[in-house]
């Protein structure tokens, strides 16, 4: 194999004979990205992946100072922020990058939804993507507790209690999650294990599957573009698309650095299990629409506790989102599917409006 290829030098030949680099090179050259008016949305997935890489890198750095116990967690982050050189920067980047990653993930999800990229044969790509959304929210929820501050403590109390609301298995699940009946140091240790080991392992598997499928099936051309016909334009993935990707990643890094430097993440007060929940308590913004919905639900709806209705409702909505590729038969047949476009728009509108209300309506109203 190596003898026919002399343009790369001896090291390349040596590696090629052992790793099969020539095949990879062929694959990279063959890969093409469609060019049309919606091409810009193709960059969101890669952007999310880049921010995930930032999370892994900064997360590993944080591990060197963080101590996962109720007695030491808050103090170890205090130390990290005040004493460790650039400790504040690493932590701020980790927190900001988490927020940006969830944002790009949502934009990626909704662009795929509205452009109907989930249609056959890409159903499993969609399933793995929704799975990754679930993991990202799990990362956010478990990571939020780790500083062991008041806000995190009560957000976790509410969040795990919501798990307890799930019919039949809820209380058992909440107990497993918290390592007991209350949010204590045991919960902190569990969340830590989930955040730094369980979720990364699952995310690794799902990202691998997701990327394999994207590679195998190629980028989806939106049905509208396909129906319009016309000449199909493409650009090579390597280097044209990858270099554009790189510009996006560098911009994201610049935004991250600016946010981390100008708006460093605060640590707040240490959690006190025997203090009242402070006014203005709220979860991370990506849980806000659910949080605000729970506030509006009355204590009983048709004889069922309001929060049960809310939690089961969001569970069913999540299931619906997951199963969209199987439910949207018109798109699968290659016909326009206005209903699912409107469902997508309705989901976005609901999330945006409830999030807006969550930040603007007075907490006692």
């Amino acid at each position, binding site marked *: 194999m190596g003898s026919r290829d002399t343009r790369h030098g001896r090291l390349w030949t040596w590696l090629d004979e052992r790793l099969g680099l020539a095949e990879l090179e062929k694959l990279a050259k063959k890969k093409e990205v469609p060019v049309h008016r919606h091409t810009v949305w193709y960059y969101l997935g890669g952007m999310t992946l880049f921010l995930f890489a930032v999370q892994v890198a900064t997360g590993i750095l944080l591990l060197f100072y963080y101590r996962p116990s109720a007695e030491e967690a808050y103090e170890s982050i205090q130390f990290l922020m005040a004493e460790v050189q650039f400790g504040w920067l690493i932590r701020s980047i980790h927190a900001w990058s988490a927020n940006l990653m969830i944002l790009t993930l949502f934009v990626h999800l909704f662009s795929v939804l509205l452009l109907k990229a989930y249609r056959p044969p890409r159903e499993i790509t969609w399933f793995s993507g929704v799975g990754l959304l679930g993991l990202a929210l799990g990362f956010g929820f478990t990571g939020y507790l780790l500083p062991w501050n008041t806000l995190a403590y009560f957000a976790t109390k509410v969040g795990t209690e919501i798990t307890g609301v799930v019919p039949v298995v809820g209380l058992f699940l909440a107990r497993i999650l918290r390592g007991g009946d*209350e949010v204590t140091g045991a919960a902190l240790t569990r969340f830590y294990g989930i955040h730094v080991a369980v979720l990364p392992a699952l995310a690794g598997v799902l990202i691998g599957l997701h990327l394999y499928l994207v590679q195998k099936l190629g980028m989806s051309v939106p049905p509208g573009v396909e129906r319009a016909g016309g000449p199909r334009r493409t650009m090579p993935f390597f280097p044209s698309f990858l270099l554009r990707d790189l510009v996006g990643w560098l911009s994201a890094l610049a935004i991250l650095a600016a946010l981390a430097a100008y708006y460093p993440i605060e640590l707040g007060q240490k959690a006190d299990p*025997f*203090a009242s*929940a402070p006014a203005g308590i709220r979860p991370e913004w990506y849980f806000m629409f659910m949080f605000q919905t729970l506030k509006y639900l009355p204590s009983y709806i048709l004889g069922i*506790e309001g929060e049960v209705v809310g939690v089961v409702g969001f569970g069913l909505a999540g299931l619906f989102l997951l199963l969209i590729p199987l439910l949207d038969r018109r798109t699968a047949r290659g016909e326009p599917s206005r209903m699912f476009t409107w469902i997508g728009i309705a989901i976005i509108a609901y999330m945006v409006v409830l999030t807006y209300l969550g930040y603007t309506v007075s907490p006692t*109203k």
Partner: protein
Amino acid sequence: MTGEALDPGMGRRSFINWFLGTSAGAFLVSVLYPAARYLIPPPAGESAAGTITLPLKPEDVKSNTGQIFKFGNRPAILIRTPAGELRAFSAVCTHLNCTVQYRADLSHIWCACHNGHYDLNGKNIAGPPPRPLDPYVVNVRGSQIVVGKSA
């Protein structure tokens, strides 16, 4: 494994398959069962104390105020109503377990997490809470406040 010999042959084959399958199943169960049991936390020792004496004097608790105290391993709230009466309730909101507080401006108990309101009897009066707060019995013995579970 040809012709007539097929049936006894497949019998042997299916027996081996069954044997392998059940062995693999038993192996998985023997690995997963301890791991699953390991994840279930052991029961925590519930505080058995039925009554506690608060580190407070009755005269220190001003009218129209409330404060959180530790009752066993859960928070509870002691309030003095605007009329001057001492009352105590579990401070665990019946909605989603947040810790409630006394709002002097509203003269009743309020939960900050989802805007739940309780009156001075611990009854849920507004917002999402589905049940009243559990009441406790408050006794003033000389200069001591003793709080106990209601019988």
